C-alpha cells in the first residue's frame, strides 16, 4: 500500500524549520564538494608527481635495449673493417622499436642510439681520470656540433679491409668538446693517452674540437661525459671524459677495441608529458615484464637485451603516492565522520523542534510509514540539489568527482531526518511507561546499560581491528583500504565514547562539589550540566572533530618538521659544495676560505666515497665511507638540528664509527676495506655509531687521521651566509643549499597537495565542531531556558542566567578542548607509523612526531569563543520573550 501523503504538512514543516534545513543543505554542499574533489585532485597530483619523477630521473628512467655485435672475423682469421656498421646501428634501432610493446612505445620519446666503448684509464699521470669513446645517433643523425678546430673524425682506412688479430694498434679518430680538450690539454692531431684494465694502450687520435650547438639536446643526456667531465661514474674519486665518434670513424672504433669492448644501446627516454599515474603503473609493469622476458646478458647471439630503471623510479613514486593516498584517505574519512555526526545532530535538532507537531500528527491518525515518506521527501529535496551542486562544483574545479566518497554524507543527510522524526513520533505515541515495580525498573536500567556496553565494545573492537589492519596491511591506493584508513577516526570515536561514559561521573562530582559551595550559580550550572551529560551526539561531535583536527594538524606539523629535518640530512648543513674533480686538491683550502666568509659558522671538508668494498664479519659490504676531521665535523653538526653524534668526540686513528640499516655494521666489529688508490687492505675497528650522512643507509666514518688516502670532495658549510658563500665558490662544482632542497620538497606536488588538504581538513573539522556545538546548544535550548525561567521565578537575576547557561554548556567544551587534542595525539602515536611519512619527508626513518601544543590553546579559544557566542545569541533571541510565555510553552 502506498502511504498517504499530506503535502501541506510537508510544506509547513519545511517552512517552520527552514533555517536548520538550509544548514543541512550547506553542510552537504561543502562536504560533498570536498569529498568529490579530493580524489581527482589527488590523482592529478599523482600524475604530476610521476611526471616529475620521470623528469628528474632522466636517463635512469629510459628503456634501454642492447645487443651484441656479430663477430667480424674475416676469411683470413683477421678482423674485417665493416663500413656499413653505422647502417647496422640504424637497423638495430629499428629492430628495437619494432620489438617494443606499442603502449610502451607510445609513452616513450624517439630513440637515441649510442655505441660506447669500455672506459679506459687516462695515463697522463694526473688525478684519476677515465675516458670513453662514444657514437651517438638520433632521428637527425646525431646531435649537432660546430667544429671549432680540426675536423670531424674520419675513417682511418677505406673499404672493408681485413686486419690481422695481432697487428699494430688500430687508430681511431675522435672529436673532443672544447671543455674536455682543455681538461686533457689536447689539440687536433694529438693522441689521448689511455689504457685499459690490462694496461693495454689504445690509439685514439684527436681529429678536431667541437662545440655543441645545443648542449641541452636530449641526445647528449645519454653521454654527458662527452661534453663535460663527469665524476663518480667509474669509482670513487674518478672523473670520466669522453670522445665523440662519427659514422666514418665508427668502423675503426670497432676494430680498435675487442669484440666485447664496444657496446651498442638504444635509449628510449620516457616522455613525462605523455604519462598519467595510471599509465605509469602500466608502464612500470610493462617495463618490468620486458626486463624479465629479455635475453640474458650472457647470451652470445645478437638478440635484444632490455634494461630500464623506469620500474624502479615508478616504484619509488608509487611508495610516495601510496603514502599520500593513505594520508588523504585518513583525512577525508575524518572529515566525512565529522560531517555525518553534525548531520545527525541537525536531524536530532529538527526532530526535537518538531516533536510536538509530529506527536499531534500521529495522534490525528497519521501512520509512521506516511510520516517517514513525508520526511524522506523533505530530506531528499534538501539533500539531492545540494549534493548535485557540490558534485557539479567538483567537476568544474577539480575536473572530476569521486561519487563513492560522497555517499556517506548524502545517505546520512537523506536518512537521518526521517529516522529521527519517525522515532520521535513513535516515542510520543507509544504506550510504554516506567514500570511501577522497582526490580522491573532496575532490570530495565540494566538492560539499557548492557546495550550501551555492547555498543561501546563494538566500536572499540572496530577501532582496534582498524588499527591492526592499518599496521598489517597499510593503506594502498586502489585497494580495499576503507577499514585501515578509518583507524584514526574509529579510534577517536571509541575514545570519545569511553570519555562519554565517564561524563556523568565527572559532572556528578562537579555538582556535589558545587552543592558544598556558597555560589548558587555554580549549583544551577552544574545541575543542568549533570542533567545533559549523558547526551551522546553533542560530546561525540565536539570531541571527535577536535581530536581529528588535532590529528590533521599534527600530521602537517610532523611532515613539515620532517621535511625540514630531511633537508638538513640530505645537505648535511646549510649548504654543501661538491668540489669539482679538478679542484679537489684545493678542497681543504676552499673549506678554509668558506669558513671565513660572512655569515658562515663552520666549513668542513670531507671525502665521501659511495660503495667502498668492505669485509666485515666475513660479509662483503659496500657502505659509504666518509673521511673527515671528526672534531671539526662535530662542531659543524652542533650548528644544525641534526641528531647529536657524541661518538665523533675523540675519534682518531684506525677507529671508525658505523651506521647500518640492517645491523651488518655494528660497533665493536673489525672491518677491512680496500680503496682504489690503496693497495693493501686497511683494517678499522668500529668504536661507535656514525651520524646519518645524506641518504646513505650504511656508513663508515673515519677521522682524517685514520691513515687512509684522503682527497676531500665535499665541503659542508653552516651559518646564515653559507648558501651565498657556497654558491659563490661553486665554480665547476655543484652547490646544494638546504633552503633550496627544502623549498623543492615543500613545493613537490604530493607534499604541497597534502599540506593543503591537512589544513583544509583541520579547518573543516574545527568548523564542523563549532557548528555541532551550536546545533547541540540549540537542541537543548528549550529545556535550558525553561529551567532558567523557573529559576527566575525563584529570584535568579536575568544577567545570571547567562552564567548558568554557560555553566551547563561548559563541560563538553572543556572535554573537547582538552580531551580532543590529547585523543588526537594518542591516535597519532597509534597510527603514524604505517602512514610512512618518511617517503614524503625524504628522511631515512619516519620523522619524530611534532606535537602542536599551541593547538590546545587554539581549540580552547575557539570552543570557548563559540560557547560565549552561543550563550550571547541565545540570550539575545530570548530577551524579548516574557517569562510567562516561556513557562506557558514549557509547561504545556
Amino acid at each position: 500500500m502506498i502511504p498517504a501523503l499530506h503535502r501541506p504538512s510537508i510544506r509547513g514543516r519545511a517552512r517552520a524549520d527552514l533555517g536548520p534545513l538550509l544548514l543541512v543543505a550547506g553542510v552537504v554542499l561543502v562536504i560533498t564538494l570536498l569529498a568529490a574533489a579530493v580524489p581527482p585532485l589527488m590523482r592529478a597530483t599523482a600524475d604530476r608527481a610521476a611526471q616529475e619523477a620521470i623528469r628528474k630521473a632522466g636517463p635512469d628512467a629510459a628503456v634501454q635495449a642492447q645487443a651484441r655485435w656479430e663477430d667480424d672475423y674475416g676469411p683470413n682469421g683477421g678482423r674485417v673493417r665493416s663500413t656499413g656498421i653505422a647502417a647496422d646501428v640504424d637497423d638495430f634501432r629499428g629492430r628495437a622499436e619494432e620489438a617494443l610493446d606499442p603502449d610502451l612505445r607510445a609513452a616513450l620519446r624517439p630513440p637515441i642510439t649510442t655505441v660506447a666503448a669500455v672506459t679506459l684509464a687516462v695515463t697522463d699521470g694526473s688525478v684519476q681520470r677515465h675516458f670513453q669513446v662514444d657514437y651517438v645517433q638520433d632521428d637527425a643523425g646525431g646531435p649537432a656540433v660546430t667544429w671549432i678546430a680540426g675536423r670531424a673524425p674520419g675513417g682511418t682506412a677505406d673499404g672493408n679491409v681485413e686486419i690481422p688479430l695481432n697487428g699494430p694498434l688500430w687508430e681511431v679518430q675522435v672529436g673532443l668538446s672544447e671543455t674536455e680538450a682543455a681538461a686533457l690539454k689536447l689539440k687536433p692531431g694529438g693522441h689521448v693517452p689511455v689504457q685499459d684494465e690490462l694496461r693495454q694502450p689504445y690509439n685514439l687520435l684527436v681529429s678536431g674540437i667541437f662545440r655543441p650547438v645545443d648542449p641541452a639536446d636530449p641526445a647528449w643526456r645519454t653521454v654527458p661525459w662527452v661534453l663535460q667531465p663527469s665524476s663518480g661514474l667509474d669509482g670513487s674519486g674518478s672523473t670520466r671524459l669522453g670522445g665523440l665518434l662519427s659514422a666514418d670513424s665508427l668502423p675503426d672504433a670497432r676494430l680498435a677495441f675487442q669484440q666485447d669492448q664496444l657496446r651498442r644501446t638504444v635509449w628510449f627516454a620516457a616522455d613525462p608529458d605523455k604519462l598519467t599515474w595510471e599509465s605509469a603503473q602500466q608502464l612500470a609493469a610493462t617495463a618490468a615484464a620486458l626486463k624479465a622476458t629479455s635475453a640474458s646478458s650472457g647470451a652470445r647471439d645478437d638478440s635484444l637485451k632490455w634494461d630500464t630503471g623506469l620500474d624502479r623510479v615508478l616504484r619509488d613514486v608509487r611508495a610516495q603516492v601510496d603514502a599520500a593516498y593513505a594520508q588523504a584517505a585518513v583525512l577525508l574519512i575524518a572529515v566525512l565522520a565529522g560531517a555525518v555526526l553534525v548531520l545527525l545532530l541537525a536531524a536530532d535538532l529538527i526532530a526535537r523542534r518538531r516533536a510536538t507537531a509530529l506527536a499531534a500528527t500521529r495522534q490525528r491518525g497519521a501512520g509512521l510509514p506516511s510520516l517517514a515518506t513525508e520526511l524522506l521527501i523533505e530530506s531528499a529535496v534538501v539533500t539531492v540539489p545540494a549534493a548535485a551542486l557540490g558534485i557539479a562544483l567538483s567537476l568544474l574545479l577539480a575536473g572530476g568527482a569521486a561519487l563513492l566518497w560522497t555517499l556517506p554524507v548524502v545517505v546520512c543527510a537523506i536518512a537521518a531526518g526521517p529516522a529521527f522524526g519517525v522515532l520521535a513520533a513513535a516515542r510520543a505515541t507509544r504506550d510504554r511507561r516506567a514500570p511501577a515495580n522497582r526490580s522491573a525498573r532496575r532490570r530495565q536500567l540494566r538492560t539499557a546499560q548492557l546495550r550501551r556496553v555492547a555498543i561501546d565494545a563494538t566500536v572499540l573492537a572496530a577501532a582496534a581491528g582498524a588499527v591492526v589492519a592499518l599496521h598489517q596491511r597499510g593503506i594502498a591506493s586502489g585497494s580495499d583500504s576503507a577499514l585501515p584508513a578509518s583507524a584514526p577516526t574509529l579510534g577517536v570515536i571509541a575514545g570519545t565514547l569511553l570519555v562519554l561514559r565517564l561524563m556523568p561521573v565527572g559532572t556528578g562530582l562537579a555538582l556535589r562539589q558545587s552543592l558544598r559551595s556558597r555560589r548558587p550559580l555554580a549549583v544551577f550550572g552544574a545541575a543542568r550540566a549533570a542533567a545533559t551529560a549523558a547526551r551522546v551526539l553533542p560530546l561525540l561531535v565536539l570531541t571527535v572533530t577536535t581530536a581529528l583536527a588535532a590529528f590533521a594538524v599534527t600530521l602537517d606539523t610532523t611532515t613539515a618538521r620532517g621535511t625540514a629535518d630531511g633537508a638538513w640530512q640530505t645537505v648535511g648543513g646549510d649548504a654543501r659544495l661538491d668540489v669539482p674533480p679538478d679542484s679537489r686538491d684545493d678542497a681543504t683550502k676552499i673549506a678554509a676560505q668558506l669558513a671565513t666568509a660572512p655569515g658562515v659558522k663552520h666549513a668542513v671538508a670531507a671525502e665521501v666515497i659511495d660503495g667502498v668494498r668492505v669485509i666485515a664479519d666475513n660479509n662483503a659490504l659496500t657502505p659509504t665511507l666518509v673521511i673527515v676531521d671528526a672534531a671539526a665535523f662535530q662542531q659543524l653538526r652542533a650548528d644544525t638540528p641534526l641528531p647529536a653524534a657524541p661518538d665523533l668526540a675523540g675519534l682518531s686513528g684506525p677507529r671508525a664509527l658505523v651506521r647500518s640499516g640492517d645491523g651488518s655494521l655494528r660497533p665493536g666489529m673489525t672491518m677491512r676495506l680496500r680503496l682504489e688508490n690503496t693497495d693493501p687492505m686497511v683494517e678499522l675497528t668500529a668504536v661507535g655509531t656514525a651520524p646519518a650522512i645524506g641518504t646513505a643507509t650504511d656508513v663508515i666514518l673515519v677521522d682524517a687521521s685514520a691513515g687512509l688516502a684522503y682527497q676531500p670532495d665535499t665541503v659542508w658549510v653552516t651559518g646564515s651566509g653559507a648558501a651565498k658563500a657556497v654558491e659563490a665558490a661553486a665554480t665547476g662544482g655543484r652547490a646544494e643549499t638546504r633552503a633550496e632542497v627544502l623549498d623543492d620538497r615543500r613545493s613537490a606536488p604530493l607534499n604541497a597537495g597534502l599540506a593543503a588538504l591537512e589544513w583544509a581538513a583541520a579547518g573543516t573539522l574545527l568548523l564542523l565542531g563549532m557548528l555541532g556545538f551550536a546545533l547541540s546548544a540549540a537542541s537543548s535550548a528549550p529545556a535550558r531556558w525553561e529551567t532558567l525561567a523557573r529559576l527566575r521565578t525563584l529570584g535568579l537575576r536575568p544577567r545570571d542566567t547567562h552564567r548558568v547557561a554557560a555553566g551547563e554548556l561548559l563541560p563538553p567544551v572543556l572535554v573537547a578542548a582538552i580531551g580532543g587534542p590529547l585523543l588526537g595525539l594518542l591516535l597519532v602515536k597509534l597510527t603514524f607509523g604505517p602512514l610512512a611519512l618518511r617517503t614524503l619527508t625524504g628522511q631515512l626513518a619516519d620523522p619524530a612526531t611534532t606535537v602542536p601544543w599551541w593547538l590546545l590553546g587554539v581549540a580552547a579559544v575557539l570552543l570557548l569563543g563559540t560557547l560565549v557566542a552561543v550563550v550571547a545569541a541565545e540570550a539575545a533571541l530570548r530577551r524579548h520573550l516574557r517569562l510567562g510565555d516561556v513557562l506557558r510553552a514549557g509547561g504545556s
Partner: protein
Amino acid sequence: MSSALLSVAGIHRTFGSGPAAVHALHDISFEVEPGTMVALVGRSGSGKTTLLNVIGGLDRPDRGTVTVDGIDVTALDEDGLSALRRERVSYVFQTFGLIPVLSAAENVGVPLRLARTPQADRERRVELLLELVGLAGHAQQRPGELSGGQQQRVAIARAIAASPRLLIADEPTGQLDAETGLSVMALLRGIVESEGVTALVSTHDPVMMALADRVIHLADGQLTT
C-alpha cells in the same frame, strides 16, 4: 491606605494587534487581604494564567497597576522583579518545575541559596519544610523517584522556603488525580494558616474552591463576581 497585601487595579492585557488581537484581561481590579487563600476560577482561556503572570511580574500589563506588599510590581525593572520574587512572591506550577538531578531537599533549598541563606539555617529550614509537607523521609530522593503528588509537595515547600508574602499557584493540581489534588490543596490551606502567607490559586475544581477563603471568577478576561 489599604491593608490589602495584593491590590490589582484596572489591568488590561491584549495579545497581538489589529483584528487578530486577543483581549486576555480587561479592566481587572480586586484586592486580597493578607493571610487569605483566594481561588481564581475560570474555564480554560479565561485569562487565569495571564492574570497570575501579571501579578507575579512574569508578564507586564498594557494598563493598570499591581501592588504586592506595598510595591508597585508594574513599575519594577527586571532586577526589581527578581528581588520581588526572591523575597515576596513565589510560584507553584502545574508541572512542578523541579531540578531533576537535585534531591528533594536540595530542590527545596534553591530559593534559600539564591537568597544566600547560611548553610546551617538553610538546612534547618529545609528540614522543617519537608516535615511540613510530609516528605521528611524522602529528603534525599530525586524528583524522578517521587510520585506526582510528592513532587508537587516538594514544589510547594520550595515556594515557601524563602517565606514569601504572596504564593501564586497556577493549577497546582492539574496533573494530579483527584485524591492527591485534594491533599495538595489541603496542604496549601494548612500552609496559609501556619505560615501566614497569602495564596492566590487558580483551579477548575469546585472541590478545591471549598478550601478557599474567597473565590474570584474570571470569564473572557473579565471578573464576573
